[in-house]
């Protein structure tokens, strides 16, 4: 036994035991990672090279799905809608969360009540959010348009005019920024008070303190929330689907809706998989670009 240990110095008995238990305890995730991640991701790559309608076995067609998408006007419409949404919703959502947090981080009474009110919309079931806003924004008898009509003002076609739908969705999006706001609030409370005190002594006004202390100190968390918002924005499905099924005139036909339609309504599993892979690659490129740019605007305190 002693000889065996001396001959295999790589892992001692205790080390082997540690490795065994470590992997044993992590095994739910390890097995799940293979079952629900590696196998599906690889098969998705394969399906994206096939024509597959679930009824007949998949037929290998090479890059045809990708080539067809490259000359598909619907695809470019969907891509445009999605980029419009991502580029506007991520910064505006993060900005609204940040401003709410800054507002709450001042000397006010009933702070936790305000915080609770601002937070609540983000945890309400999406089906309820959709039902209520659909009712509220209805062109004929929604509360907002009824009020406008009573004031003899023109009605606003929030969800019935294609030019209004995306901005309407943006408004609802900015209303439900609770989690990002709470993360910002915790960050703001961690900014050392000495910084503000020193700046005040040096004669800095509140605006200058905000620009030169609050913003830089929060910039890592702004980056974190932006990355999360971009990834979520590319996958936006629930609200535009529940509000108008992507319409009217496909004005809210986003990437995830188009993918869902192809996969589960038209049963084009191959095309849907190709779409998923394009989405994946676009998200990676966007995230990498954001991190690259962050070197210029994110300030990290030295530990």
């Amino acid at each position: 036994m002693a000889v065996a240990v001396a001959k295999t110095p790589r892992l001692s008995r205790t080390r082997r035991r540690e490795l065994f238990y470590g992997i044993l305890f992590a095994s739910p995730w390890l097995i799940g990672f293979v079952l629900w991640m590696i196998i599906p991701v690889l098969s998705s790559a394969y399906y994206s090279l096939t024509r597959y309608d679930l009824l007949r076995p998949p037929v290998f067609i090479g890059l045809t799905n990708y080539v067809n998408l490259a000359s598909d006007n619907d695809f470019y419409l969907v891509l445009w809608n999605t980029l419009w949404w991502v580029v506007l919703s991520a910064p505006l959502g993060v900005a609204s969360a940040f401003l709410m947090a800054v507002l709450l981080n001042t000397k006010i009474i009933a702070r936790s009540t305000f915080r609770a009110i601002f937070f609540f919309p983000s945890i309400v079931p999406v089906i309820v959010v959709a039902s209520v806003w659909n009712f509220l924004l209805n062109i004929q008898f929604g509360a907002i348009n009824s009020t406008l009509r009573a004031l003899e003002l023109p009605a606003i076609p929030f969800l019935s005019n294609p030019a209004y739908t995306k901005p309407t969705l943006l408004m609802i999006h900015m209303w439900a920024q609770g989690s990002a706001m709470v993360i910002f609030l915790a960050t703001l409370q961690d900014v050392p008070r000495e910084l503000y005190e020193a700046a005040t002594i040096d004669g800095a006004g509140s605006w200058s303190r905000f620009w030169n202390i609050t913003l830089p100190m929060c910039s890592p968390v702004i980056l974190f929330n932006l990355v999360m918002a971009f990834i979520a924005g590319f996958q936006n499905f629930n609200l535009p689907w529940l509000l108008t099924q992507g319409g009217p005139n496909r004005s809210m036909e986003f990437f995830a809706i188009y993918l869902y339609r192809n996969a589960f309504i038209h049963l084009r599993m191959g095309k849907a998989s190709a779409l998923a892979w394009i989405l994946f690659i676009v998200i990676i490129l966007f995230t990498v670009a954001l991190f690259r740019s962050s070197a210029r605007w994110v300030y990290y305190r030295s530990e």
Partner: protein
Amino acid sequence: MAAETLPRGTPVERSRPRHTSLGSMLGLIVRYAILIALAITFLLPFYWMASSAMKDDSQVYVVPPRWIPNPAYIGNFWAAWQVDNFNLYAFNTIVKYAIPSTFGTVLSSALVAYSFSRMRWPGRDVLFAICLATMMIPFQVTLVPLFIIFKQMGWINTYLPLVVPSFFGNAFFIFMLRQFFRTIPMELSEAARIDGAGEIQTLFQIILPLAKPALAVVALFAFMNAWNDYFGPLIFVNAQDQWTLALAIQRMGAALSEVGASRNAYPYLMAVSTIVTLPILLLFFFAQRAFIEGISLTGLKG
């Protein structure tokens, strides 16, 4: 850090000398005006939902809108619940989906987080990094193959596709629990080891009791994710007797635009929406701290 010596929630400006100049008075008024205007905007949709739930058709379509239902039909809530088999949908949502998936998520995520934070083994940190990276993969990439696999296994129209994967750990909750487990002093585990406790004993008798608040947050979030989930049931559960509340409400909303929508359709839709929001409101009311601290935990130390 200086801020940590302050009680939580102390605004950073409190220590500054008080100004009573006209300018700061004005600033204060503007600040409260913005806060109150925002608060009203945020609450209005919920007020409109709950008040419309108590109207009848004649009050829904009046111009200008009637903000206070008169007369108020409290019975609408009960009547709306009877329009469809909502008892069954609530049963499906809670018993078939939310409870088992919450149980699976808490149990498996705690085990894995324990391994990633309090056990030392070669390859651990690489695997944890991979675990975090999986959160970046859009679910659409795995959606189609998973649907095909579950279909071949005969799992479509059951809750297995939504419940079984929850027993294999959730990257987000693993990360959250790992952050928490790391704050528990390692000496406690070492003392247990010297006393002859195995890893399972250490986890269940020492770590988990100390981590109750964090486990409660994970359970809360997992339950809420299932309760609020729309997309999962939309994909995997089609048969009406298997619907969740979310699917049933969507059907109710879709029926509104169909010809010959039934009487009180809008009030009933709002009534059911109010009922489905109520558990979330109650959870939030009683566990506000858990919500807020759980979310802060995930964002800060990332």
